[in-house]
């Protein structure tokens, strides 16, 4: 048990990811306000992006531009560029989703005069 805890502490980035993910998920599940739900959703997306970036980081590594073209490439001295590129795409996707979500929220507010899920459900019946 103690070993497991120590193993987790060895990788604080994973711990941070789990905390942010669960925090976002908790907000999504427990809050009635639709905008707060969107905030929770965005936290979940961000946590996954954070995870992607954190697995590509290396100690003492530099940007992935070749330092020398004559020597053989030392993979350990460059950060992995691919997850960063994926992250950019994932951020764009996340922003687009959030945009549509906020537009829906605005339309819901105009229609029902409230953003509270319980009030909206009451009006739906």
């Amino acid at each position, binding site marked *: 048990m103690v070993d497991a805890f120590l193993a987790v502490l060895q990788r604080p980035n994973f711990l941070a990811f789990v905390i942010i993910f669960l925090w976002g*998920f908790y907000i*999504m599940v427990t809050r009635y306000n*639709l905008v707060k*739900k*969107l905030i929770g*959703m965005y936290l*979940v*997306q961000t946590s*996954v992006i954070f*995870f*992607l970036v954190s*697995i590509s980081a290396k100690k003492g590594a530099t940007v992935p531009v070749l330092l020398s073209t004559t020597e053989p490439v030392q993979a350990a001295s460059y950060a992995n560029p*691919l*997850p960063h590129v*994926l992250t950019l*795409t*994932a951020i764009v*996707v996340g922003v*687009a*989703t959030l945009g*549509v*979500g906020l*537009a*829906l*929220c605005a*339309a*819901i507010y105009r*229609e029902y005069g409230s953003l509270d899920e319980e009030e*909206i459900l009451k009006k*739906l019946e």
Partner: protein
Amino acid sequence: MSHQLPAILFLLPLFAAISMPVVCLKHRHWSYPISVATLAVMVLVSILNLQNVIHHGEVRYVFSGWTVPLGIEWVADGLASVILVLLSALGLLGVVFTGSTSPKDLGGRIVHYYTLILLLVSALTGIVFAGDLFNLFVFLEVAAISSYALIGVAGGRALFAAFRYLVLGTLGASLYLLGVSYLYAVTGTLNMSDMVDKLPFLLSSKALVGGLIFMFIGLAIKMALVPFHSWLPEAYTYAPESISPILASLVTKVALLAWFRIIYWVFNASIVINDIPILLLVAALGTLATVIGASLALAQRDLKMMFAYGGISHIGIILIGIGQGNQTGFAGGVFYLLNDAVMQAGLFFFAGVAFCQYGVRTIDDLGRVGKQAPWLTGSLIVMALGMVGLPPTGGFFGKWYIILGALEAGNYVSVAAVLLSTLLTLAYFVKLFECIFRQSSTQLDVQSGGIPFPFKLTLGVTTAAIIILGLFSGPIVQLLLDHALPPGL
């Protein structure tokens, strides 16, 4: 030229979608013919592509010359090409149908409405072709974002349903992305065919199991597998009449396709992780989904809600077929997927016509249809035969091959589940027809002119397709067995 077909198929609807707001700036009524023409060309190209794949084997399309594993690869194999013919044909029918039902108060925004439909079709094309796990994620999200917006168009209750779909769908996409990053962390590649080479040495990795589970949960939300189905019925019920057929027939099926591409093409399907055979799990979840979905459908009184739950139960039947792990079951599952897409489209076309022409929302109003439109009732009877699975229709042969596959695998629980869901399907259609033919419910006569031509065309084509798929089930299943099977099955 022929090796460019996958890219052409994707770019056709995409370019039409992007250029539409500009082209139709002054002439908004052009948007309908342009969409129809684009998708009609897409149907032809997809048939050409299928022919090409059958004669010359699969096409691997590499974007801008970056070879695998560095670049993004698209795979047009037999399965993708068959599904693509279905996708473009149903997209075309959906757009043709849209012409007479599109929400009246959209005004100038009608152009964006068609833009979104074309964007949805192009994104679905991307999912079908994607040979790269991250690429798949991007198209999954493009398809999802266009569906959220399209559902929200109807206003009213649809807004709230679309919001729920958005929150759940995004959670699913995030989980899928998380799974992809796990697999990337373990294997160091995102390309499916490259990953296949690296996986056998890594099967004991816990990260791999975790990644697979996250991906599965993510895609299960997208394909509305019980118990992740809660967004689907409301979203499809309150969506505009013209959008429900496209969404119901395509979006969930394509997510399902993505799932079995991952499990069969990337992971070797027969693998056992921690003493749990993955396929058995898939079949068990399918069993659960098909019985629960059909029972919930029986409890509905809203017409579209009933059909939506019917769709959920059929996702389960397809999963049962796929989960048997033998050729018969797989071909049966894919064949049933084709049939189910056509039947779902047909049922929602029916619901759309019944609402637009006769104001029918719940099954209690259906008596009006029975009295005033015998042809409409006739097409519903054919669709019901297909849904229940009686011989002249494709639904019967799909279930037949799935049951044969289950018997071959000795999986009698699956056989029982398919039969039970068939009985439940029969029960809710009996309930429906009882309402149609009951004379007392016709007190409210809605004045309606003739049924517009697009309605007749779409309903006629889907009804005919259900029968044709049944009559030609032999050659189609043989085609699937010859060209669409995963390697090593």
